[in-house]
Protein backbone atom coordinates (compact mmCIF):
# COMPACT_ATOMS: atom_id res chain seq x y z
CA UNK A 1 0.00 0.00 0.00
CA UNK A 2 1.33 3.41 -0.96
CA UNK A 3 1.91 5.70 2.01
CA UNK A 4 1.25 8.82 -0.05
CA UNK A 5 -1.86 10.95 -0.04
CA UNK A 6 -2.63 13.68 -2.55
CA UNK A 7 -3.04 17.37 -1.79
CA UNK A 8 -5.83 18.05 -4.23
CA UNK A 9 -6.71 21.51 -3.01
CA UNK A 10 -5.24 24.30 -0.90
CA UNK A 11 -6.71 27.57 0.32
CA UNK A 12 -6.07 30.42 2.71
CA UNK A 13 -7.74 33.37 4.27
CA UNK A 14 -5.18 36.19 4.11
CA UNK A 15 -3.31 36.87 7.37
CA UNK A 16 -3.90 40.20 9.10
CA UNK A 17 -5.62 41.79 12.04
CA UNK A 18 -9.17 41.59 10.80
CA UNK A 19 -10.95 41.48 14.14
CA UNK A 20 -13.54 38.92 13.07
CA UNK A 21 -14.35 35.39 14.23
CA UNK A 22 -11.89 32.62 13.44
CA UNK A 23 -14.80 30.72 11.94
CA UNK A 24 -14.98 33.13 9.03
CA UNK A 25 -11.29 32.71 8.22
CA UNK A 26 -11.53 28.93 8.34
CA UNK A 27 -14.62 28.80 6.16
CA UNK A 28 -13.06 31.03 3.55
CA UNK A 29 -9.89 28.93 3.49
CA UNK A 30 -11.96 25.73 3.25
CA UNK A 31 -14.04 27.07 0.39
CA UNK A 32 -10.94 28.14 -1.49
CA UNK A 33 -9.34 24.73 -0.97
CA UNK A 34 -12.47 22.97 -2.21
CA UNK A 35 -12.68 25.23 -5.26
CA UNK A 36 -8.99 24.59 -5.90
CA UNK A 37 -9.69 20.84 -5.74
CA UNK A 38 -12.72 21.11 -7.98
CA UNK A 39 -14.87 19.52 -5.28
CA UNK A 40 -17.94 20.55 -3.32
CA UNK A 41 -18.40 20.61 0.44
CA UNK A 42 -20.77 17.66 0.13
CA UNK A 43 -17.94 15.57 -1.30
CA UNK A 44 -16.07 15.82 2.01
CA UNK A 45 -16.53 12.83 4.28
CA UNK A 46 -13.97 13.71 6.93
CA UNK A 47 -13.01 17.01 8.57
CA UNK A 48 -9.88 17.45 10.66
CA UNK A 49 -9.80 20.73 12.56
CA UNK A 50 -6.87 22.34 14.34
CA UNK A 51 -8.17 23.88 17.55
CA UNK A 52 -7.65 27.44 18.66
CA UNK A 53 -7.91 26.67 22.35
CA UNK A 54 -5.33 29.26 23.23
CA UNK A 55 -8.26 31.53 23.84
CA UNK A 56 -8.79 29.29 26.83
CA UNK A 57 -12.23 28.11 25.91
CA UNK A 58 -13.24 24.68 24.67
CA UNK A 59 -16.17 26.15 22.77
CA UNK A 60 -13.75 26.81 19.96
CA UNK A 61 -13.81 23.25 18.68
CA UNK A 62 -12.44 23.65 15.21
CA UNK A 63 -13.61 20.59 13.29
CA UNK A 64 -17.27 20.66 14.25
CA UNK A 65 -17.38 24.45 14.18
CA UNK A 66 -16.21 24.62 10.57
CA UNK A 67 -18.44 21.68 9.62
CA UNK A 68 -21.44 23.47 11.06
CA UNK A 69 -20.57 26.77 9.40
CA UNK A 70 -20.17 25.05 6.04
CA UNK A 71 -23.46 23.23 6.65
CA UNK A 72 -23.88 20.05 8.70
CA UNK A 73 -23.40 17.22 6.22
CA UNK A 74 -22.95 14.27 8.54
CA UNK A 75 -19.21 14.26 7.87
CA UNK A 76 -17.03 12.66 10.48
CA UNK A 77 -14.85 15.00 12.43
CA UNK A 78 -11.76 15.08 14.62
CA UNK A 79 -10.32 18.19 16.25
CA UNK A 80 -6.69 18.36 17.31
CA UNK A 81 -4.70 20.43 19.70
CA UNK A 82 -0.92 20.34 19.94
CA UNK A 83 0.10 23.99 20.35
CA UNK A 84 1.92 25.21 17.21
CA UNK A 85 1.89 21.64 15.86
CA UNK A 86 -1.92 21.45 15.94
CA UNK A 87 -2.18 21.87 12.18
CA UNK A 88 0.29 19.06 11.54
CA UNK A 89 -1.64 16.78 13.89
CA UNK A 90 -4.79 17.52 11.89
CA UNK A 91 -2.95 16.77 8.65
CA UNK A 92 -1.60 13.53 10.07
CA UNK A 93 -5.05 12.45 11.24
CA UNK A 94 -6.64 13.17 7.85
CA UNK A 95 -3.79 11.43 6.10
CA UNK A 96 -4.21 8.25 8.14
CA UNK A 97 -7.95 8.29 7.47
CA UNK A 98 -7.25 8.36 3.74
CA UNK A 99 -4.51 5.73 3.91
CA UNK A 100 -6.71 3.36 5.90
CA UNK A 101 -9.43 3.71 3.30
CA UNK A 102 -11.91 5.08 5.86
CA UNK A 103 -12.25 8.46 4.13
CA UNK A 104 -12.27 9.48 0.48
CA UNK A 105 -12.07 13.27 0.71
CA UNK A 106 -10.67 14.87 3.86
CA UNK A 107 -10.76 18.57 4.64
CA UNK A 108 -8.11 19.94 7.01
CA UNK A 109 -8.78 23.40 8.43
CA UNK A 110 -7.08 25.67 10.94
CA UNK A 111 -7.84 29.29 11.71
CA UNK A 112 -7.23 31.75 14.48
CA UNK A 113 -8.21 35.17 15.71
CA UNK A 114 -5.19 36.09 17.78
CA UNK A 115 -5.08 38.19 20.93
CA UNK A 116 -2.75 41.16 21.24
CA UNK A 117 0.65 41.27 22.85
CA UNK A 118 2.53 38.50 24.65
CA UNK A 119 0.90 35.11 24.81
CA UNK A 120 0.04 34.64 28.48
CA UNK A 121 -1.53 31.81 30.45
CA UNK A 122 -5.12 31.75 31.69
CA UNK A 123 -5.89 33.23 35.09
CA UNK A 124 -5.74 31.26 38.32
CA UNK A 125 -2.87 29.90 40.40
CA UNK A 126 -1.44 26.67 38.97
CA UNK A 127 1.92 25.90 40.57
CA UNK A 128 1.94 22.45 38.92
CA UNK A 129 1.76 23.99 35.45
CA UNK A 130 5.14 24.89 33.92
CA UNK A 131 3.50 27.48 31.68
CA UNK A 132 2.16 29.31 34.72
CA UNK A 133 5.32 28.88 36.77
CA UNK A 134 7.63 30.45 34.20
CA UNK A 135 5.55 33.61 33.99
CA UNK A 136 4.95 33.93 37.70
CA UNK A 137 8.35 33.03 39.13
CA UNK A 138 10.63 34.65 36.56
CA UNK A 139 8.64 36.72 34.06
CA UNK A 140 9.73 34.38 31.28
CA UNK A 141 7.77 35.04 28.06
CA UNK A 142 8.07 33.27 24.71
CA UNK A 143 10.71 35.75 23.45
CA UNK A 144 12.87 34.78 26.44
CA UNK A 145 13.43 31.36 24.86
CA UNK A 146 14.08 32.91 21.44
CA UNK A 147 16.66 35.19 23.06
CA UNK A 148 18.39 32.32 24.87
CA UNK A 149 18.70 30.26 21.72
CA UNK A 150 19.87 33.27 19.68
CA UNK A 151 22.51 34.30 22.20
CA UNK A 152 23.82 30.74 22.31
CA UNK A 153 24.36 30.83 18.54
CA UNK A 154 26.41 34.01 19.00
CA UNK A 155 28.56 32.67 21.82
CA UNK A 156 28.97 29.20 20.29
CA UNK A 157 29.11 29.82 16.55
CA UNK A 158 30.03 33.47 16.24
CA UNK A 159 26.66 34.51 14.86
CA UNK A 160 26.16 38.26 14.71
CA UNK A 161 23.13 40.49 14.99
CA UNK A 162 23.65 41.23 11.34
CA UNK A 163 23.26 37.52 10.50
CA UNK A 164 19.96 37.42 12.34
CA UNK A 165 18.74 40.62 10.69
CA UNK A 166 19.53 39.15 7.28
CA UNK A 167 16.88 36.49 7.87
CA UNK A 168 14.25 39.19 8.35
CA UNK A 169 15.44 41.10 5.29
CA UNK A 170 15.27 37.93 3.19
CA UNK A 171 11.83 36.88 4.39
CA UNK A 172 10.41 40.38 3.99
CA UNK A 173 11.57 40.32 0.38
CA UNK A 174 10.16 36.84 -0.18
CA UNK A 175 6.72 37.80 1.08
CA UNK A 176 6.56 41.04 -0.88
CA UNK A 177 4.25 39.65 -3.56
CA UNK A 178 2.45 37.00 -1.50
CA UNK A 179 -1.23 38.00 -1.52
CA UNK A 180 -1.87 36.08 1.71
CA UNK A 181 0.93 37.72 3.69
CA UNK A 182 0.10 40.38 6.27
CA UNK A 183 3.32 42.40 6.01
CA UNK A 184 4.40 43.15 2.45
CA UNK A 185 7.16 45.67 2.79
CA UNK A 186 10.92 45.44 2.37
CA UNK A 187 13.03 46.16 5.43
CA UNK A 188 16.73 46.87 5.70
CA UNK A 189 19.23 45.44 8.13
CA UNK A 190 19.55 48.88 9.68
CA UNK A 191 15.81 49.08 10.27
CA UNK A 192 15.83 45.68 11.94
CA UNK A 193 18.79 46.52 14.16
CA UNK A 194 17.35 49.96 14.85
CA UNK A 195 14.14 48.54 16.30
CA UNK A 196 13.95 48.11 20.06
CA UNK A 197 15.53 45.13 21.76
CA UNK A 198 12.81 42.87 23.18
CA UNK A 199 14.85 39.90 24.39
CA UNK A 200 18.56 40.44 23.93
CA UNK A 201 19.96 39.96 21.28
CA UNK A 202 16.63 40.05 19.41
CA UNK A 203 14.84 43.18 18.22
CA UNK A 204 11.16 43.86 17.79
CA UNK A 205 11.38 43.27 14.03
CA UNK A 206 12.96 39.88 14.61
CA UNK A 207 10.12 38.37 16.63
CA UNK A 208 6.91 37.37 14.92
CA UNK A 209 3.61 39.07 15.63
CA UNK A 210 0.28 37.35 16.29
CA UNK A 211 -2.18 37.39 13.41
CA UNK A 212 -5.65 36.43 12.31
CA UNK A 213 -5.69 33.94 9.45
CA UNK A 214 -6.81 30.58 8.13
CA UNK A 215 -5.55 27.76 5.95
CA UNK A 216 -7.06 24.57 4.56
CA UNK A 217 -6.16 21.48 2.57
CA UNK A 218 -8.20 18.92 0.69
CA UNK A 219 -6.55 15.51 0.94
CA UNK A 220 -7.51 12.42 -1.07
CA UNK A 221 -6.03 9.10 -2.09
CA UNK A 222 -3.65 9.08 -5.03
CA UNK A 223 -6.15 7.12 -7.11
CA UNK A 224 -8.89 9.63 -6.46
CA UNK A 225 -6.61 12.56 -7.22
CA UNK A 226 -5.43 11.10 -10.51
CA UNK A 227 -8.98 11.26 -11.79
CA UNK A 228 -8.94 15.00 -11.19
CA UNK A 229 -5.41 16.05 -12.07
CA UNK A 230 -2.50 14.60 -14.00
CA UNK A 231 0.30 14.99 -11.50
CA UNK A 232 -0.92 15.66 -8.00
CA UNK A 233 1.21 17.06 -5.24
CA UNK A 234 1.49 14.44 -2.50
CA UNK A 235 2.34 14.10 1.16
CA UNK A 236 4.52 11.00 1.57
CA UNK A 237 5.16 11.56 5.28
CA UNK A 238 4.11 13.54 8.33
CA UNK A 239 5.97 13.55 11.63
CA UNK A 240 4.31 14.51 14.93
CA UNK A 241 7.08 13.27 17.19
CA UNK A 242 7.71 13.98 20.83
CA UNK A 243 11.18 14.23 22.39
CA UNK A 244 13.26 11.26 23.48
CA UNK A 245 14.31 11.31 27.12
CA UNK A 246 16.31 13.17 28.25
CA UNK A 247 15.45 16.37 26.44
CA UNK A 248 18.46 18.36 27.59
CA UNK A 249 17.82 21.57 25.64
CA UNK A 250 15.66 24.15 27.41
CA UNK A 251 12.26 24.46 25.81
CA UNK A 252 9.05 26.43 26.08
CA UNK A 253 7.37 26.53 28.56
CA UNK A 254 9.72 24.74 30.94
CA UNK A 255 11.84 26.19 33.71
CA UNK A 256 14.32 23.34 33.47
CA UNK A 257 15.47 20.60 31.13
CA UNK A 258 15.43 16.88 31.71
CA UNK A 259 18.55 15.51 33.39
CA UNK A 260 21.16 13.71 31.32
CA UNK A 261 22.90 12.44 34.48
CA UNK A 262 22.05 8.77 34.08
CA UNK A 263 21.64 8.34 30.34
CA UNK A 264 23.53 11.22 28.72
CA UNK A 265 21.99 13.46 26.07
CA UNK A 266 19.98 11.72 23.33
CA UNK A 267 21.70 10.75 20.11
CA UNK A 268 19.47 13.08 18.09
CA UNK A 269 18.29 16.23 19.91
CA UNK A 270 14.53 16.78 19.79
CA UNK A 271 14.50 19.53 17.17
CA UNK A 272 16.67 17.49 14.81
CA UNK A 273 14.48 14.42 15.30
CA UNK A 274 11.37 16.18 14.00
CA UNK A 275 12.22 16.37 10.29
CA UNK A 276 14.39 13.26 10.50
CA UNK A 277 11.34 11.11 11.24
CA UNK A 278 9.56 12.59 8.22
CA UNK A 279 12.57 12.11 5.92
CA UNK A 280 12.99 8.51 7.06
CA UNK A 281 9.33 7.73 6.46
CA UNK A 282 9.38 9.31 3.01
CA UNK A 283 12.65 7.64 2.10
CA UNK A 284 14.31 10.96 1.30
CA UNK A 285 16.96 13.12 2.91
CA UNK A 286 17.87 16.76 3.31
CA UNK A 287 19.87 16.54 0.08
CA UNK A 288 16.60 16.01 -1.82
CA UNK A 289 15.00 19.19 -0.50
CA UNK A 290 14.34 21.99 -3.01
CA UNK A 291 12.40 24.28 -0.70
CA UNK A 292 11.56 24.50 3.00
CA UNK A 293 9.03 26.31 5.13
CA UNK A 294 10.15 26.54 8.76
CA UNK A 295 8.73 28.17 11.84
CA UNK A 296 10.63 31.47 12.12
CA UNK A 297 9.21 32.63 15.44
CA UNK A 298 12.43 34.63 15.54
CA UNK A 299 15.09 35.35 12.96
CA UNK A 300 17.71 33.35 14.84
CA UNK A 301 15.35 30.41 15.16
CA UNK A 302 15.23 30.11 11.37
CA UNK A 303 18.99 29.53 11.47
CA UNK A 304 18.52 26.76 14.07
CA UNK A 305 16.07 25.10 11.68
CA UNK A 306 18.59 25.10 8.80
CA UNK A 307 20.67 22.74 10.90
CA UNK A 308 17.78 20.81 12.41
CA UNK A 309 16.27 19.96 9.03
CA UNK A 310 19.70 19.00 7.79
CA UNK A 311 20.43 21.76 5.26
CA UNK A 312 23.84 22.19 6.90
CA UNK A 313 25.85 20.98 9.90
CA UNK A 314 25.50 22.64 13.30
CA UNK A 315 27.26 26.01 13.31
CA UNK A 316 27.03 26.49 9.54
CA UNK A 317 23.66 28.21 9.27
CA UNK A 318 25.19 31.69 9.34
CA UNK A 319 27.18 30.86 6.24
CA UNK A 320 23.97 29.86 4.43
CA UNK A 321 22.18 33.11 5.14
CA UNK A 322 25.32 35.18 4.36
CA UNK A 323 25.84 33.39 1.04
CA UNK A 324 22.21 33.71 -0.01
CA UNK A 325 21.78 29.93 -0.15
CA UNK A 326 18.34 30.14 1.44
CA UNK A 327 17.13 33.10 -0.61
CA UNK A 328 14.91 32.47 -3.62
CA UNK A 329 17.39 31.77 -6.41
CA UNK A 330 19.82 30.21 -3.94
CA UNK A 331 20.67 26.58 -3.33
CA UNK A 332 17.69 25.73 -1.12
CA UNK A 333 15.29 28.60 -0.49
CA UNK A 334 13.70 28.72 2.96
CA UNK A 335 10.39 30.44 3.69
CA UNK A 336 9.63 31.61 0.15
CA UNK A 337 6.17 32.53 1.46
CA UNK A 338 7.78 35.17 3.63
CA UNK A 339 7.42 32.96 6.71
CA UNK A 340 6.10 34.10 10.03
CA UNK A 341 8.09 37.28 9.51
CA UNK A 342 5.49 38.31 6.91
CA UNK A 343 2.50 36.35 8.20
CA UNK A 344 2.68 36.54 11.96
CA UNK A 345 1.53 33.62 14.01
CA UNK A 346 -1.99 32.20 13.66
CA UNK A 347 -1.26 29.07 15.64
CA UNK A 348 -3.68 26.39 14.39
CA UNK A 349 -3.37 27.59 10.77
CA UNK A 350 0.40 27.81 10.57
CA UNK A 351 1.46 24.23 9.90
CA UNK A 352 -1.33 23.94 7.34
CA UNK A 353 -0.30 27.20 5.66
CA UNK A 354 3.23 25.83 5.26
CA UNK A 355 1.83 22.95 3.20
CA UNK A 356 -0.27 25.38 1.13
CA UNK A 357 2.86 27.30 0.20
CA UNK A 358 4.82 24.18 -0.71
CA UNK A 359 1.92 22.99 -2.85
CA UNK A 360 1.84 26.25 -4.75
CA UNK A 361 5.63 26.08 -5.15
CA UNK A 362 5.57 22.50 -6.41
CA UNK A 363 2.76 23.29 -8.85
CA UNK A 364 4.59 26.36 -10.14
CA UNK A 365 1.82 28.67 -8.95
CA UNK A 366 3.79 30.77 -6.45
CA UNK A 367 3.62 33.93 -8.48
CA UNK A 368 6.30 36.49 -7.66
CA UNK A 369 8.16 34.08 -5.37
CA UNK A 370 8.39 30.90 -7.46
CA UNK A 371 11.29 28.51 -6.99
CA UNK A 372 11.95 27.08 -10.42
CA UNK A 373 11.68 23.33 -10.76
CA UNK A 374 10.97 22.61 -7.10
CA UNK A 375 10.03 18.95 -6.69
CA UNK A 376 10.34 18.25 -2.98
CA UNK A 377 9.68 20.42 0.04
CA UNK A 378 9.79 20.03 3.78
CA UNK A 379 8.06 21.92 6.59
CA UNK A 380 9.21 22.12 10.19
CA UNK A 381 7.51 23.44 13.22
CA UNK A 382 7.58 23.00 16.96
CA UNK A 383 4.89 23.57 19.54
CA UNK A 384 5.38 24.03 23.23
CA UNK A 385 4.94 21.04 25.55
CA UNK A 386 7.01 18.77 23.26
CA UNK A 387 5.13 18.89 19.96
CA UNK A 388 7.20 18.39 16.86
CA UNK A 389 5.81 18.66 13.36
CA UNK A 390 7.23 18.11 9.92
CA UNK A 391 5.56 17.41 6.59
CA UNK A 392 7.18 16.23 3.36
CA UNK A 393 5.48 17.48 0.20
CA UNK A 394 6.51 16.30 -3.23
CA UNK A 395 5.53 16.19 -6.87
Amino acid at each position, binding site marked *: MSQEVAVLGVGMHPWGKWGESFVKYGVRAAQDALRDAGLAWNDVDFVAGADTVRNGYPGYVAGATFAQALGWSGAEVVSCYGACASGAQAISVARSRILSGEAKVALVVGADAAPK*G*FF*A*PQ*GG*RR*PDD*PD*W*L*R*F*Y*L*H*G*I*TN*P*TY*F*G*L*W*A*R*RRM*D*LYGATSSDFAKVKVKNARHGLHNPNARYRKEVTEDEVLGS*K*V*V*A*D*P*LHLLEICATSDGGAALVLTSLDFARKHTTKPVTIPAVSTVTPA*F*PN*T*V*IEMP*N*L*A*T*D*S*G*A*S*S*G*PPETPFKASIAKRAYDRAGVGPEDVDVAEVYDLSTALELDWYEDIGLCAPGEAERLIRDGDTTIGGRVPVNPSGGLACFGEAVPAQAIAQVCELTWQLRGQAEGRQIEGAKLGVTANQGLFGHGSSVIVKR
Partner: protein
Amino acid sequence: MSEKTTVAAVEGLLVADPSAPRLLGSRCKACGTYYFPAEHTLCRTPTCSSTELESVELSTEGVLWSYTSANYKPPAPFVAKEPFEPFAIAAVTLEREQLTVLGQVVPGVGVDALKTGMAMELTLGTLHEDDEQRYLTWQWKPVGH
Protein backbone atom coordinates in the same frame (compact mmCIF):
# COMPACT_ATOMS: atom_id res chain seq x y z
CA MET B 1 13.60 47.65 56.53
CA SER B 2 10.59 45.86 57.93
CA GLU B 3 9.40 42.98 60.03
CA LYS B 4 7.91 41.17 57.04
CA THR B 5 8.31 37.44 56.98
CA THR B 6 9.86 35.87 53.89
CA VAL B 7 8.28 32.93 52.17
CA ALA B 8 8.88 30.93 48.99
CA ALA B 9 6.70 32.30 46.15
CA VAL B 10 5.78 28.71 45.32
CA GLU B 11 6.00 25.81 47.77
CA GLY B 12 8.27 22.88 47.14
CA LEU B 13 10.70 24.37 44.62
CA LEU B 14 13.21 26.08 46.86
CA VAL B 15 14.40 26.45 50.44
CA ALA B 16 13.56 30.03 51.36
CA ASP B 17 16.64 30.50 53.51
CA PRO B 18 18.65 33.47 52.22
CA SER B 19 21.75 32.27 54.04
CA ALA B 20 21.68 28.93 52.19
CA PRO B 21 19.54 29.12 49.04
CA ARG B 22 18.81 25.75 47.49
CA LEU B 23 16.56 24.34 44.78
CA LEU B 24 14.54 21.28 45.72
CA GLY B 25 14.40 18.48 43.18
CA SER B 26 14.16 14.73 43.26
CA ARG B 27 16.30 11.80 42.20
CA CYS B 28 15.38 8.33 41.07
CA LYS B 29 16.79 5.76 43.48
CA ALA B 30 16.96 3.17 40.70
CA CYS B 31 18.68 5.02 37.84
CA GLY B 32 19.95 8.24 39.44
CA THR B 33 18.12 10.66 37.15
CA TYR B 34 17.37 14.07 38.66
CA TYR B 35 14.12 16.03 38.33
CA PHE B 36 13.38 19.71 38.77
CA PRO B 37 10.63 20.50 39.58
CA ALA B 38 10.65 17.34 41.65
CA GLU B 39 8.99 14.23 40.29
CA HIS B 40 7.76 11.84 42.96
CA THR B 41 5.31 9.54 41.17
CA LEU B 42 7.21 7.85 38.38
CA CYS B 43 10.75 8.03 36.99
CA ARG B 44 10.43 9.46 33.49
CA THR B 45 13.44 7.59 32.11
CA PRO B 46 11.42 5.35 29.78
CA THR B 47 13.54 2.28 30.46
CA CYS B 48 13.37 2.74 34.23
CA SER B 49 9.80 3.58 35.36
CA SER B 50 10.79 3.24 38.99
CA THR B 51 8.42 4.75 41.53
CA GLU B 52 11.16 5.19 44.14
CA LEU B 53 12.19 8.82 44.00
CA GLU B 54 13.80 10.79 46.82
CA SER B 55 13.88 14.53 47.48
CA VAL B 56 17.26 16.15 46.89
CA GLU B 57 18.80 19.60 47.01
CA LEU B 58 20.32 20.54 43.68
CA SER B 59 23.81 21.89 43.12
CA THR B 60 23.98 25.61 43.75
CA GLU B 61 26.64 26.31 41.14
CA GLY B 62 26.65 25.75 37.43
CA VAL B 63 27.79 26.92 34.02
CA LEU B 64 25.96 29.58 31.99
CA TRP B 65 24.32 27.85 29.01
CA SER B 66 22.85 31.06 27.60
CA TYR B 67 21.18 34.31 28.66
CA THR B 68 18.83 37.00 27.46
CA SER B 69 16.85 39.95 28.80
CA ALA B 70 13.26 40.92 29.47
CA ASN B 71 13.10 44.49 28.21
CA TYR B 72 9.30 44.73 28.27
CA LYS B 73 7.04 44.09 31.24
CA PRO B 74 5.89 40.45 31.24
CA PRO B 75 2.14 39.89 31.62
CA ALA B 76 0.35 38.44 34.67
CA PRO B 77 0.76 36.20 36.59
CA PHE B 78 4.13 37.99 36.79
CA VAL B 79 3.97 40.80 39.35
CA ALA B 80 6.12 43.57 37.87
CA LYS B 81 7.65 46.40 39.83
CA GLU B 82 6.38 49.85 38.84
CA PRO B 83 8.08 51.40 37.00
CA PHE B 84 9.24 48.25 35.27
CA GLU B 85 12.97 47.57 35.39
CA PRO B 86 14.35 45.32 32.63
CA PHE B 87 16.21 42.29 33.91
CA ALA B 88 18.43 39.53 32.57
CA ILE B 89 17.50 35.85 32.47
CA ALA B 90 19.99 33.00 32.60
CA ALA B 91 19.97 29.31 31.72
CA VAL B 92 22.48 27.54 33.95
CA THR B 93 23.61 23.93 33.55
CA LEU B 94 24.27 22.05 36.78
CA GLU B 95 27.22 19.72 36.33
CA ARG B 96 26.26 16.85 38.59
CA GLU B 97 22.61 16.85 37.57
CA GLN B 98 23.26 17.48 33.83
CA LEU B 99 20.18 19.66 33.94
CA THR B 100 19.69 23.29 32.92
CA VAL B 101 17.63 25.65 35.07
CA LEU B 102 16.26 29.03 34.02
CA GLY B 103 15.94 32.00 36.30
CA GLN B 104 16.21 35.74 36.62
CA VAL B 105 19.65 37.19 37.06
CA VAL B 106 20.16 39.34 40.16
CA PRO B 107 19.28 43.03 39.74
CA GLY B 108 22.22 45.09 38.55
CA VAL B 109 23.73 42.37 36.37
CA GLY B 110 22.78 42.88 32.74
CA VAL B 111 23.51 40.84 29.64
CA ASP B 112 26.73 42.82 29.06
CA ALA B 113 28.21 41.23 32.17
CA LEU B 114 27.36 37.69 31.05
CA LYS B 115 29.05 35.20 28.75
CA THR B 116 28.16 31.63 27.86
CA GLY B 117 30.36 29.28 29.85
CA MET B 118 30.87 31.45 32.90
CA ALA B 119 30.34 30.12 36.44
CA MET B 120 27.06 31.05 38.07
CA GLU B 121 25.66 30.52 41.53
CA LEU B 122 22.22 30.41 43.08
CA THR B 123 20.82 33.11 45.29
CA LEU B 124 17.40 34.27 46.45
CA GLY B 125 15.60 37.49 45.60
CA THR B 126 12.27 39.11 46.28
CA LEU B 127 9.75 38.40 43.54
CA HIS B 128 7.05 40.65 45.00
CA GLU B 129 5.69 41.61 48.41
CA ASP B 130 2.48 42.47 50.15
CA ASP B 131 1.83 44.09 53.53
CA GLU B 132 2.83 41.03 55.51
CA GLN B 133 5.20 38.99 53.42
CA ARG B 134 8.02 39.02 50.91
CA TYR B 135 7.74 36.27 48.29
CA LEU B 136 11.08 34.81 47.29
CA THR B 137 12.24 33.18 44.09
CA TRP B 138 15.64 31.91 43.02
CA GLN B 139 17.98 34.06 40.98
CA TRP B 140 21.32 33.45 39.31
CA LYS B 141 24.44 35.57 39.70
CA PRO B 142 27.99 35.29 38.43
CA VAL B 143 30.12 33.47 41.01
CA GLY B 144 31.79 36.00 43.28
CA HIS B 145 29.53 38.85 42.21
